[in-house]
């Protein structure tokens, strides 16, 4: 128990640091009201000072050397604040580079590919070719961590973003989601991926990152919806006193609970596993699928409770709902993971389904 408590305490310290920075420098109301992006630089600076973007990079590679569990707790907090800077993406990129022992540069990073349908090829001359769509925050990143394949296996590469062609795009929440094209692009570092590491490994890790963020956003949606229902008066009483509203909020709590349980379970599975085995696959794929479903149902209820005011730019609700809905698409759409999980279950056979579920 000693070890367990010590770990839980450290997680709290790292998560508390993140929470404090978000409270001070990423207040949703302030950001939402500000016209420009002047809030971004101080926030990023504070996060970097605290070592959070490179949380998963070992200390000997100039990172913070935090545990996977500590990093996951930062991402839950980032979800609760619907933070619109490439914190999750830089953490993921640092983690990917560390798999191959590549040191992380300072500044924002992102990862490619960010979905199952894109493949980057490592050419014989050590350059990269291919296209990665829906790469989050590529516009804002100085460097890209890339997973590339060649006949001799997978490699991990570090590229300067300026050496790639970029087509800017936006997700539902207006955050950058870009297409990167590599055309015989020369990386600044290149090493083989460790044995057993596949593109699916990167996508599962990304899926759990997004699941934690969605769960955090749902917690925030629940909190602000409950608060609003206790303030808003209609028909001469607080709308929280109407049974129809109460039951909608109870359903939102259920969706937030399901997302939270699925995402924390999957994060715990990765943090306590040596690799990306079948158990991690079940947990991570399930988390992404269930969190995506929760995002849809939960966001709809949060908006319903708020009525027209929640549909305005001025109100903060959209910061959470639109991000949660967008995050469903990254690192494998929920439909992708559902097909993959369904195929695995079918291949194992009917009588092996319960043993698989019960093993977790």
């Amino acid at each position, binding site marked *: 128990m000693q070890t367990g408590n010590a770990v839980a305490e450290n997680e709290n310290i790292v998560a508390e640091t993140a929470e404090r920075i978000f409270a001070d420098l990423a207040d949703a109301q302030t950001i939402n009201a500000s016209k420009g992006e002047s809030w971004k630089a101080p926030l990023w600076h504070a996060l970097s000072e605290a070592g959070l973007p490179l949380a998963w990079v070992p200390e000997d590679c100039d990172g913070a050397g935090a545990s996977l569990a500590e990093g996951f707790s930062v991402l839950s907090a980032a979800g609760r604040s619907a933070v619109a800077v490439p914190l999750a993406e830089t953490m993921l990129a640092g983690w990917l580079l560390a798999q191959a022992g590549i040191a992380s540069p300072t500044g924002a990073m992102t990862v490619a590919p960010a979905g199952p349908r894109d493949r980057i090829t490592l050419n014989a001359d050590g350059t990269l070719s291919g296209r990665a769509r829906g790469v989050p925050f590529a516009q804002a990143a100085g460097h890209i961590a890339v997973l590339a394949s060649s006949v001799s296996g997978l490699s991990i590469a570090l590229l300067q973003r300026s050496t790639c062609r970029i087509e800017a795009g936006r997700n539902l929440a207006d955050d950058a989601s870009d297409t990167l094209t590599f055309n015989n692009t020369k990386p600044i570092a290149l090493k083989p991926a460790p044995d057993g590491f596949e593109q699916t490994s990167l996508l599962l890790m990304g899926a759990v990152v997004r699941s934690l963020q969605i769960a955090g956003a749902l917690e925030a949606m629940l909190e602000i919806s409950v608060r609003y229902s206790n303030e808003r008066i209609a028909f001469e009483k607080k709308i929280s006193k109407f049974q129809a509203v109460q*039951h909608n909020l109870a359903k939102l*709590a*259920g969706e937030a*609970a399901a997302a939270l349980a699925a995402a924390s379970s999957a994060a715990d599975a990765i943090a306590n596993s040596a690799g990306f085995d079948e158990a991690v696959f079940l947990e991570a794929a399930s988390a992404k699928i269930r969190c995506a479903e929760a995002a849809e149902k939960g966001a709809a209820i949060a908006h319903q409770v708020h009525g027209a005011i929640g549909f305005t730019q001025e109100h903060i609700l959209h910061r959470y709902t639109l991000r949660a809905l967008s995050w469903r698409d990254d690192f494998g759409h929920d439909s992708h993971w559902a097909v993959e999980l369904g195929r695995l279950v079918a291949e194992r*056979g009917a009588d092996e389904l319960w043993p698989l579920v019960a093993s977790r």
Partner: protein
Amino acid sequence: MTAALRFDPIRLPPACEVLRKEVRAFLAEEIAAGTFDPHKPQREDSDAPEFSRRVGERGWLGMTWPKKYGGHERSFLERYVVTEEMRVANAPTRRFFVADRQSGPVLLKYAPEHIKMNILPRICRGEVCFSIGMSEPNSGSDLFAAKTKATKTDGGFLINGSKIWTTSAHIADYMIAIFRTSPSTKENRRHGLTQFLVDMKAPGIKVNPIAQITGLYEFNEVVFTDTFIPDDHVLGEIDGAWKQATSELAYERSGPERFLETYYVLTELVRAVGPKPDARGAEGIGRLVAQLHTMRRMSVSVAGMLQIGREPVVEASIVKDIGTVWEQQLPHRVRELAAFVDPDASNHATLNEQLAFAMKIAPKLTIQGGTTEVLRGIIARGLGLR
């Protein structure tokens, strides 16, 4: 946070996996011996007294209770494993399930010592069946509207009135029921009900079975006419049953039986689609498995929190709410996917038979033991809305 929901990622300890193997081996033996057919959830003979005794012999009843009363002082998580394995196998647990989950813990907490010594060891041996007398013809979800009267007499109480929808009353040895001992008060409409232990062999009890839409007779009307209950059968505080109701519900609400009631149709669908399903079949199964896995992780988390002495009332209500809605919808989702299954698949008839039964029982799943509406009211209170 207004509502700090907690679902810690609790894992079952290694001892549970040893136990799980034992339970699976036992169930395999019972299936081989013809005690029950795991593919046939619809059974007239689900009261299986011999099976019940054999489960007791294995030490799987009263698992968490003190040894002094025949219990085994094992953890809630170990009990969880036994419950889920029995449920998934469609084992005939009716005779002991209510006593083991609910009635035993109530007796442990509120019954006088000599009654505990008499009844609890018999529950642990799988010998006695319990029913729960809550609903009345004009009092269902509104528990505190109960009118069936317990009138004080020499050495006990006389009961007059009736209970309804009482599952297993026709085979039960005992009932734990609430009766009215005083009128409710203006200040507290929940006041005036008392919890009693009723010996079903007492004179003046008539059990009338009620046919369900499945064709089965699982629940009953129970009519009491001057039925005598001795003073020592009062459980807890006179007029204070309302204080005793809430804590036991966390156990009742969040167990694996709250999302596995129709699980068999999912297994059978996987069998029917075969090893290489098309994208639609695979996606449908994948989503259902993800939902099932998530439900179970939530339910295990609540069991783990109960084990360390927390009372996660809101979390438990959430598990029952989304668990029962899920198991209710499951046969309909499976039906949609089964439309594309090869009609010559070897288990097609079994799947159709199971779907027909699951769709018939589906409506009760969000009603029994606390309706969806009642649960959402409890969750809303936990969120600070009422």
